[in-house]
């Protein structure tokens, strides 16, 4: 009898907790942002302790990471040496390319980015969840960072601020599966596409481009800056790494490698630009 009663209590408890979880999930999904405020407050509260412990244990972590990734690091080192030699040979021709780039940037009305105020921020946390691609910055509302501001660095678009507290901000990277960026091709005036993130450490994709779009490997994609868009025009988003025709659809799918080196985001710039500004 007592056992049956206890079993019934257990079932009721589990059902109530599951319903409570579902209620919280749906309330949050429908735009209740109270959780974000608590998240930001707790992040500010725990960050000093977390940073201190990280500083102490980082060498240990680096040791293990180095052991696990030794082969990859060695390959990367060889690749970097090759790239360095290659770049040195190209140094002369780069001056010409630089002049062309300046012209191109002027054509893309990039100049205004130079006048957009920026906030330099340090990356203090990378990817707390295995299911999302995010970073955390050490600047928040007290430094003028707001939700929705674009983040650039390491050669291109990094992502967009999705939540902010007084002294920190969370940025959704362009590779996150829920990220989408409207892009234009600098070599063409009319073609535009949406580049979607495909998850952490995975190349992005742009689907169903018209076959008329002359997309080739290495094509640079810039933010289009469409009216009502969430990014200003002219920020490098990525380069096309492959393009394939969709059978029967008269379209082309492309994969895009991020312009920014997302594995090396020590410092980034937050553009103090919001949609409509």
């Amino acid at each position, binding site marked *: 009898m007592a056992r049956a009663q206890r079993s019934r209590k257990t079932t009721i408890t589990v059902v109530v907790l599951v319903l409570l979880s579902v209620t919280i999930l749906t309330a949050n999904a429908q735009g209740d942002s109270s959780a974000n405020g608590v998240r930001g407050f707790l992040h500010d509260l725990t960050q000093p302790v977390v940073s201190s412990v990280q500083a102490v244990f980082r060498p240990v972590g680096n040791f293990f990471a180095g052991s696990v990734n030794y082969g990859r690091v060695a390959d990367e080192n060889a690749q970097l040496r090759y790239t360095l030699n290659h770049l040195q040979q190209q140094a002369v021709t780069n001056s010409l390319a630089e002049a062309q780039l300046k012209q191109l940037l002027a054509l893309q009305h990039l100049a205004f980015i130079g006048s957009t105020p920026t906030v330099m921020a340090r990356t203090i946390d990378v*990817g707390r969840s295995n299911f999302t691609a995010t970073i955390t910055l050490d600047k928040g509302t007290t430094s003028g960072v707001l939700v929705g501001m674009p983040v650039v660095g390491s050669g291109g678009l990094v992502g967009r601020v999705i939540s902010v507290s007084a002294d920190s901000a969370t940025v959704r990277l362009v590779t996150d599966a829920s990220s989408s960026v409207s892009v234009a091709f600098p070599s063409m005036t009319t073609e535009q596409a949406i580049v979607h993130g495909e998850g952490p450490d995975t190349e992005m994709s742009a689907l169903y481009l018209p076959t008329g779009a002359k997309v080739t490997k290495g094509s640079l994609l810039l933010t289009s800056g469409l009216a009502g868009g969430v990014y200003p025009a002219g920020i490098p988003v990525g380069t096309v790494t492959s393009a394939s025709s969709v059978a029967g659809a008269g379209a082309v799918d492309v994969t895009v490698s991020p312009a920014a080196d997302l594995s090396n985001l020590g410092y980034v710039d937050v553009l103090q630009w919001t949609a409509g500004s």
Partner: protein
Amino acid sequence: MSPKLLRTTAVVTVLFLVQFSLFDSWAISGVHVDCIWTLATIGGLLGGARFGATFGFSVGLAMDLFLPTPFGLTALVCCLVGAVVGQLADRGLDADLGPVVPGVCAIAAAASVLCYPLLGVFIGANELLKAPLLLIVAVDTLASACLALPVLQAMRWAGGREGFAPSQKAPSAW
């Protein structure tokens, strides 16, 4: 606040700090260890289904406050894991059998990782399915097996002499 609750809070706090300070920065191909599944599983093993569900929900909700994923999703998964493992414990699965605990933790971690994006789909978070699931399952399964015994010991210390099991007057302490 009872001493048992204080000790349990201390154990959970230390594990969270270890997670944020160490595990989050030791990533293999971008995937890091999650200790939350181990915590929920051990809660179920030591306290049975009712305590496991409550404990899993509580630690999951606390973890949700630090994650960029949908708020409440970790709480839901941990609640279910705690309840299911607790049900097994109620039916005789003994946490004293050393090799059983890492095995149960590993299986529970794999199930949790797979459940996470699947439940996320129900609230429209389809992007969670694009995560490298197999790699996350591999890392979390292995890590959960390794963490099982230390977490078990820590939680046993937190439970004190009374423990968390329902037959030992534990509910009154909460």
